[in-house]
């Protein structure tokens, strides 16, 4: 089994914090890192083949999706600014191209959200669990 007690939190004084101030919810504890404690071997994990694979896979997906939605958004905004006549072209009744493209931004946002959730569940989460297990094993 792994070690079940987390290392003590460091406050800004470097001492253990044992008091939470009700009015501000223990904000004084926020020094987030356990500097100096013998934590997990981050450099080792970062160099491992599994982690490199996870990193490049996640980065590739996140960055390409970011590029995609920014391109769609920029295209929409530029059309709205510089092609108002095209955007004002009626499609049915008073509903015009601009309105449909605007609603299209809603659709693309929800679509990318769904794609990412599926990608994360299939390709990120299981891999993260494996790396965590390996790291926990290595700590023994």
């Amino acid at each position, binding site marked *: 089994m*792994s*070690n079940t007690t*987390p290392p003590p939190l460091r406050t*800004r004084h470097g001492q253990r914090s044992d008091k939470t*101030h*009700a009015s*501000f*919810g*223990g*904000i*004084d*504890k*926020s020094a*987030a*890192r*356990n500097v100096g404690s013998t*934590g*997990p071997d*981050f*450099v080792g*994990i*970062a160099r491992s083949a599994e*982690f490199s694979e*996870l*990193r490049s896979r*996640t980065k590739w997906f996140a960055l390409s*999706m*970011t590029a995609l*939605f*920014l391109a769609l*958004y920029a295209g929409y*905004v*530029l059309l*709205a*600014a510089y092609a*108002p*006549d095209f*955007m004002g072209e009626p499609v*049915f*009744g*008073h*509903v*015009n191209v*601009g*309105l449909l493209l*605007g*609603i299209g*931004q*809603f659709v693309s*946002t929800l679509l*990318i*959200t769904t794609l*990412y*959730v599926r990608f994360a569940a299939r390709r990120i*989460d299981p891999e*993260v669990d494996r*790396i*965590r297990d390996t*790291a926990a094993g290595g*700590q023994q």
Partner: protein
Amino acid sequence: MITLAQEGSPLGDSSPAVNITVFAALIVLTLFVTYRASSRSDTSDYFAAGGTFSGAQNGIALSGDFLSAASFLGIAGAIAVHGYDGFLYSIGFLVAWLVNLLLVAERLRNTGRFTMGDVLSFRMRQRPVRAAAAISTLFITIVYMIAQMAGAGDIVALLLNVRSSSGQALVITVVGVVMVLYVLIGGMKGTTWVQIIKAAMLLLSVSLITLFLLGKFGFNLSTLMERAADNNPLGERVLAPGAQYGENAVTKLDFISLSMALVFGVAGLPHVLMRFYTVPNSREARRSVVWATWLMSGFYLCTLVIGFGAAALVGVETIRNAPGEENSAAALLAHEIGGTVLLGVISAVAFATILAVVAGLTLTASASFAHDFYANVVRGGRADPESEVRVARITALVIGGVAIIGGILVNGQNIAFLVGLAFAIAASANLSTLLFTLFWKRFNTTGTLWGMYGGLGSCLLLMLFSPVVSGEPDSIAPSVDFSFFPLSNPGLVSIPISFLCGIIGTFLHRDSADRKDFAEIEVRSLTGIGSRDVVL
């Protein structure tokens, strides 16, 4: 009811006394419900370590934090008066959440603990970076709060039919003082529950009004838009882009500038970033962003119908002449379709929205200032907890005071536009640094400080010399003209400046980043190893 005497109330013959009574009763009821809900929960602290909210709960609270008065009152008014150009706010506010989902939320949850400063200072020198984070948080909060104060004042001024600007100033002051007192006395606890309840009320009332409007026009959006155009002096022009921003090359650039601020601002808003810490792990953080995105896409689609509906049923002339002008469109629409009762309900929902957002903002800024700036920088890490809490309370008072004064100065401006300015500051001061620190190995302390101060400084300076502050009839100081920057939103210039400053600062200084630290932030942000919930 559309035709009314110039001096009469836009609310027709219903008396201000009845309006304000219904409104006040509903506010008290809301506060009581939130008070009961929050005191039942023992993890009500905003900064609760090891946050215990589920992804769904936190997603609703996230949308509560985000759907401020600007999203409701501001966008409805912008669409009612300017038509299609107001719809950009809806789209920008929504698309922006993809930045959070894809790049920020999970990594932030895995890396930090309480504040944005935790992540920004993770692999940098703590003191200067935390100070910079506290300062940018303070500026973003104040501008964001100015918009909320103005919105709250507009609602009450409409209910009481206060028309003179000195009367409206008094209303903003009283409402602002009440809000600050509420936050200081007890409202800081349980803000997550406040947000959840308020978001549910807001989403429910907005979707009911939308259904009603669509039903009234035979579920035909085209008919609704036709009537909206008929009741707008701009006519059919409001149905296509350009009615507000299409005039010339500069206004078109302003439109693009605004769109940039909107899409890049969300991931830099400190009170939204803080919300990613109230869930147990990064997967719940992801889930909460997904929930928030779905809820908000429904909400922002409704704003389109409500905005055009307000123009169609109330008429743009009436909206423009009402106290609060554009910001009153949603409330006037509520009165038109549901009389005094619905007006009271919608005003109370809007007011509760503002109260909750103000509480969250004040808490974020005062805690961040007291902790990151006062304790770490002023006292060199030797502040006792009592004085830290005292500083936090004083900060809350000061922020509230500045926001009230600011709210009086900007009275009459559309609050969605004002919030757009807060987004510009957030995008300029925080986004570049946040992305660089997570993704760029070389990035160092100098780059962090350059990016934050460069973006913040350029953004504030350009705002100061923009038509928002001087030179135009609706400026803060209309009688003088020292504006030389033509855009009313500085995002187009200041966001690239902050990225550029971050890069220049990084290469300027030789304190190359520690490989080990970058390995740690990479591993931790992706896997959560080393953060508080993953114990190896």
